[in-house]
Every structure is written in structure tokens, then in C-alpha cells.
């Protein structure tokens, strides 16, 4: 069985698994990293949103064999370590606004929010309502307004 190596939340990991298994299952079923959630498996619901080399990606849509040993994958479990403090400012904003209801989609929402802030900064601007309107992560509890408020607060502290 092929050996797969990549960097997960700052640590090098090596897993024996077939090339075509999607990264989501390697994380969840083999490595026991369950912050990224399954919601559709076809890159629609965005519940598994994590970061690869600092950018948002959906591990349900990436074969583990396509990762390079130097690829840095950050899941919600590793997000806090990418910033000062016990929590990432976006996680803190989520607490301040009491965003979560069932909480199932929220790891993906937070990872998408952090990536969005970074993206608009790369583009030399700040977040607009149009940016928020285009976030695809579904929340079946309907926490959308609080997500929007939390992103604005989290961005201020990032």
C-alpha cells in the first residue's frame, strides 16, 4: 500500500493508504482528526473546509496521493496555533457572537471565514456584503446573521 506523507497541523504525518482515498477520509477515518465534517462528499456543503498552504480547500475533493510531502494542511484543530493566543481571533469572535447552534458546520465556517479575510487582504481590500453573500458553507440551523457579524469582528482582530 502506498505511503502518503504531508504536514498536518504543523506535524509531519505518514499514512499507508491508497492514492485515491480523499483527504477527508484519511483525516477522519484513519488519523482520527474529526474537526472537518462530512456533509456531502462532493464539495458542495463546505463542512470539511480546511486550509492547504494557507488557502481554503475541501478535503472531500482531493485525493491523498495528490498531496506533496511539503503540503501544510491545517484543520480547525490546528487553527489556534496559527495565531497568538489560546484561540484564533475568528474562533474567539464565534464565541463572542454565540454563533454555534448544533455546531456541526461551524469548523468549516470558521476555516472559510479565515481564508476569506486573508483573500480580501491579498486583494488589498476589506470584506463586503457581496463577499459574505458568496460564502457557500451551508448552516441548516440558519445561523447566517451571526456568522456575518462574527466574521466582521474576527477580521478586525486578525
Amino acid at each position, binding site marked *: 500500500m502506498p505511503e502518503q506523507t504531508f504536514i498536518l497541523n504543523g506535524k509531519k504525518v505518514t499514512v499507508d*493508504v*491508497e492514492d*485515491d*482515498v*480523499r*483527504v477527508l*477520509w484519511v483525516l*477522519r*477515518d*484513519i488519523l482520527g482528526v*474529526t*474537526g*472537518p*465534517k*462530512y*456533509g*456531502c*462528499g*462532493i*464539495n*458542495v456543503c463546505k*463542512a470539511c473546509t480546511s486550509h492547504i*498552504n494557507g*488557502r481554503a*480547500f475541501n478535503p*472531500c*475533493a*482531493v*485525493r491523498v496521493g*495528490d498531496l506533496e510531502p511539503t503540503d501544510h494542511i491545517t*484543520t*480547525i*484543530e490546528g487553527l489556534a496555533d496559527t495565531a497568538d493566543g489560546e*484561540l484564533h481571533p475568528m*474562533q474567539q469572535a*464565534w*464565541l463572542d457572537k*454565540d454563533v*454555534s*447552534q*448544533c*455546531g*456541526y*458546520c*461551524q*469548523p468549516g465556517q*470558521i476555516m472559510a471565514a479565515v481564508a476569506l479575510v486573508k483573500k480580501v487582504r491579498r486583494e488589498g481590500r476589506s470584506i463586503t*456584503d457581496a463577499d459574505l*453573500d458568496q460564502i*457557500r*458553507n*451551508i448552516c*441548516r*440551523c*440558519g*445561523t*447566517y*446573521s451571526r*456568522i*456575518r457579524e462574527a466574521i466582521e469582528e474576527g477580521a478586525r482582530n486578525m
Partner: protein
Amino acid sequence: MSGPTIDCERAQSGASERSGISRRKFFGYVVAGTTLVAAADIALSEPATAAVPSPPQVPELYDLNDLLTDATRATANLITVIINEDGTASFALPRAEVGQGITTSTAMIIAEELDLPVEKVKVTLADARPELLFNQLTGGSNTTISTFTPIRVAAAIARNALLEAAAILLGDEVNKLVAKAGVIQAPDGRSVGYGELAKRAAVSETKKVEVTLKDVSEFKVIGKEQKRIDARAAVTGRKVFTTDLRVEDALPTMVCRPPTLNGKPVKLLNEAEIRAMPGVTDVAMIDTGVAVRARTFGQCIDAVRAMQVEWKPGPVAGESDEDIVRKLRQAEIPLPKISELGLDKIGIGPVNLNLVKSIDADFLFYFRSNSALDTNSAVADVRKDRAEIWASLKSPIVTQQTIAAELGLPQHKVKVHVVDGGGSFGRRLFFDAALEAAKISKAMGKPVKLMWHRADDARAGRMHGMATSRVRALYTGKQVLAFLQNHTSIETDYRHGLGDLITASVANLPTGLGNLGFAETIFALTQEIPYNFGVVNQSLVETDQRFNTGSMRNIYSPDVRTAAELVVDQLAAAMGMDPLTFRRKFLKDKRVLACLNKVAEVGKWGRPLPKGMAQGIAIHKEYKTASACLVEIDCRPETVNRKIPNAVTGPRVTKAVYAIDAGLVINPTGLRAQMLGGINDGIALTLTSSMHLKDGHFLEASWDNYFYTRQWNTPPEVEIIVMPSDRKTPGGAGEAGVAASMAAVACAYARAVGRVPDYFPVNHRDPLAFKPKPFIPPIPQSPTNGLKLTW
């Protein structure tokens, strides 16, 4: 519904709860143990008019209950607050947390009576406790209504026991001691913490004690903003849902399902090939399909997609939406005629029938899915002599009983753990995945972690039945003489009963009569027209048992209310009155009126808006709560046609204002969160979300097929007002936000486009906004292009 013994304290309590006034003296227990265990009977304050009603044939049920020896034990129904040596309190809540915030509100209630900081109260979800009978069902927005008093009693007894132990330790009188934040202080300044007292307050024999609860005016925790106690776990990825559990050897498992709804597997034609696939460990046929167990879910998906299965078609094979609409129409009963109403008996004097005018309206509501983001899932470990199940379950007792019967095991040999659910919306009243996982584990002889694929969860999971709602309103001059409504629906499945097998069996009687009895009872107990409309009559007809249905946040109210409020707007127009003025004139409930006035004021009812935009206003009353909603909708072409990739956009609700009087509010921020969810549900139900039945199966297989509200459709402006209430007891909240929201959006839409829609959601008959995924194989493959889509 109460247990087999009704003592006077419970009876008294029930009466006072109904009137919304709380009484304060109760009996409970200090239970024998090595640490302090305080307890109360969970049925202590269960109101007779709980939102989940008594089933028919109540006397029979009481007799059957008597057979259950467990229930005859005096302490069988106890819920217990345990004081631990680290100074924390523990409580196992016999309900399901699915996002509605009941673990947080329960921690607050305990903290209040116990004088302990909220963060020191640890609330978990209780395993199935069959002795609780009807008292372990999470439904009907009933949790806080039914558990508020017993939990307080248990906590207050714990506090008293701690004070008594402290009095001995500190050598002072109980009434001179002060309990605060988990510490008891004597007048001389000496103090002792709850942790130190936990063992000292323990008793060797259970004793019955009386306790006086705090007065509402003394509350310091209840009614204050409290952030969720599980929020930190959620935002760090540590909150554990069913599929996150690590149960030894419970490998990922999925089911290959039939190409028509509820079809049956006949034979797996390529079993050897499937067994040889990478990662696959086991294959087994069960009644719902062919199950496969593998090292990863990805390998399960591969195996399911590779299966060649011979299927027997399901019961709706070949049928489509139009066929079901036709069947519903055939089941409708005529609305009463004017002459049948006895208008002379309603106290308005003689009515000249020639002057009576009628508004007849007819609305169709298509199938809608109650699928949560966390799909149906369960872990099952079935052995020869025992079984253990983990899942998010709102009716764990009937789950346990059904699985025990299925496996041929005694009930007590099946342990059922209730796990945090990633949403429910009615879905987790049933236990489809738990039962299926048990069957698979038995067939394979190994533990399994079953997860439904999204496509299955949407297509084959439970949904809200298609329904019609017809209204006839009679009026003369500026008086409404009668308001008649008949709701005709695809059968709503209530076979979870009241959470136990006995009432579930009543609902499951042959011919479906039992379930119909449930449906009629629930309809009668939940539906209400809170207007002075003369003769009011609402009735229900249900038909067709072939679909997988159930409650959907909530049951009948959103559709029934939407139909009614659209007719209210038409009555107002017929009388030349503004919708707000009309409602003010005819509303008969002061709490609803206060909510209406509040949203009208905050939402600036009547403010000028450009053509193509409009406001809508609607009310609702249910679950001991009153509410009103005002929305503004933008139906201008530039908005309706705005482009978001792969999205259904359409009309946008730009503002929502919601006012709710939920009686005594435990946690205002939690209540507002529930209303926020209800608003987004209401928008989806009116504008975008439905299931299309075509050739025997539903087409929607993903969140980009089934259009629940997304960020591009959520209102940019939302204001939720928690109204001050004169009620001293809590009302229900989990479902209270949907009906008024759905109705307000429908009323706004009708005014914006100048036409009252006669079906919902309003986009259902538009050309399909997606290409349906195939039915064979039943689930789509995961893409591989994710690295090209990073951002």
C-alpha cells in the same frame, strides 16, 4: 401524559403550570449514595396540555403501564443532580441536544437553584431510560416546559443538603449560612466549598424532602444572556457527533440504496468483486439495501458505486408530483357551507345570508426535506447476547425497544447512548440509522459506524408530506363571520409515539388508524386561529402511507399559518383595511397583539418602498408562545436575477423583524438564536426549498439541489425582540420561529408581485435549477479537483 401514579403535588402543579403561574413548594429526594445525589420526579410538573399530546385510548395505556414493573418503583422516574468532590454538579438530561441549546439552558436552571456558576454544571445526555416511559421524548418544543420544575427541585434539594452539611461542619445554623457561587459562608467569615461537602451531604438511605424554590424575582442566572456551554468545543472541532465517535472496530459502513423510493434489494450480483475492493471488510444485504463496511467511508462510496444489485421497485415507482397532487385532491373533504355553520348561534344577531361574502383560497405545499447537515448515522455493536448503540436520538426508549425486538434480545441487553446531534428539524424523532446499523452489525457480526450519504439522506430520508390547505372565510361589512380551514396532507408518520413502544404501537396499528388518531390529536392541540373570526373550524385529513415522513420544524403550523395569514390579508383588502390595522382589530390575544405592535414599530410598517419591494406581517401562537414577524422582500428583477455561481437566488428577504413572548425566558440569546433559525427556515419554505418526485424517486441529492436558505438568500438585516412576559413559566422555543416567518414572507411576496401564490415554495414549478444526479449508482463519486479550487 403522566406516569401510572398521580399524586396530589403533581396534579396541583399541573394545574398551576397551565395557568402560567408557578408554585414553589415541592417534594423530592436525597438519594442514597457515596456523594450527594438530589433528585426529583421528572413527571413533577408535566402539564396536561403538553405540546406532544396524549394519544387516543388513554385508559388502555394506563393499564398497560401498570404492567411495567419498573414504573411502579417510587424512584423510577427520578432525575438526579449529583455534587462531585471537585465542586462541580453533574446532570444527565433525558433529552436530545441537537442545536436547540437545552444543555445550556439546563445548566443555567441548575446553576440558579444551586447557587453554582454555570461553568461548574456539567450536563450530559442520558442513555435510554425505559422507566421514564413518556418522559424521554424530545419534541413539540417541550423540553423546557416539561423539565423546568423537576430540574429546579433536584437542584434546590442539593443546595439544601449542602447547607445542612455545612451547618454541621461550621457549627452554625442553616438559616445563617449563605450559599454563593459554590461556596457556603458562615457569618463569622468561615467558608466551605461544595466539593468538600459532597461526601458529607451524602446519605445512606433515600429520604423524601420538601423544598421551596426561589421566587422569579430572586433569579440571577435565568433570564440573563448565557453563551452556549458547548460553544468552545464546537469552534475548536472537539464537539463529538456520532460519526466522530471512536468505538473499537466500528469501521465505516454505508448502504447501497434502491433506485426507487423504498424499493427492496433482491440480490447483489457481483459480491465477490465488491469484497475484493480496497479497504472492504464485509458486505451484507438488509431489508433497505446492501451494506458495505470498509476502512474508510471513501472506500464504502467506491464499493456502493460498484455494486450491481437487482431491485424490487418501491411503492411509488413510476409516480411523480402530479400523481400525488391528484391523490391529495381526491382525499380532500368539502369545506362546510354557510347554511351548515349555525351563524345565528355566534351572538351577532340575525345575519342576512344574501350579504355574506366569501373568500375561498386553496394552497399547495410540496414535499420538503428535514435532512440535517449531520446525516442519519449510528454506531452499533451487536453481539450474540447484547447490543450497544450510539446515535442522536429524540426517542431513545422506543429505539431501544424496537432494536431489542429486532435482534431478539431482552430490552435491558440493548444499551442506547444519546449523542449530540448535528441538527434535527424533526429528523431525529425517528431512529432509522440506529435500527439499520443494528441490523447490519448483526448481519456482519461486527461493530459498524453507519453513515448515510448526503444523496440518500436527501432522497430517502424523512420529509414533510405534500399538503393542501383550503380556507373559506365568510364576512359581511367589516365583520368576519367564519373562518374554515381544511388541511389535507400525505400522512405524517408519528410511529415514534410518545417516545415509548406502547404509544408507538398505538400509532402503528394495522390500517394506519392509530397513526391517524395521533395526527388528528396533534393537529387539534397545535392549531389555533387567534382572531375573533366568528365560527372557526380547522380540520385535518391525512392520506397515503407510502412516503418516509415525520415532523419538520414544526409539523402543520408553517403551512396552516401561511394559508391562514394569506387569507387574512385578503380579508383586510376586501374590507379596505391595511393588513396591520386589520390584525389589530381582530386579534383576540393580548400577547400576540403586543408582538404585532412591536414588529410594526421596529420594522417601520408602512414605510415607502420602491415598486417590486413590499412588507409582510404575520403572527403565530403555539407552544405557549406568542410571536409576530415583519419582513421586507425585494422582488425587483435586478435582485431576483442576481448571479451567484451554482445558486438559486430569486426574491431576497432584505429585512426580518421578529418579536416573541415565550413566557419566562431562560436564555435570551439562545431564544434569539432559535428565532434566527426559524426565520431562515420560513424563507426557504416560502421561496426555495422543496423536493421534486419524478418517476418514483426524489430528484434532490445535495445542498446544491435542495435550496435551503444560504448566505445569498439570508436577510442582511435581522432584529429579534424578546418580549417582556407576565407568564412565570417557560414556553417552547425550538419551533416557534418558523410559522410566522414563513407566513410573513408569503404575505410580503404576494404584495410585492401583486399576486397571491397558490403553491409553495414559489419556485417549485420553475425549470429545475440543477441536473439530477443518477439513481444508479445511487450516490455520486467525490470529485478530485479540489486542489484547483483553493482560494
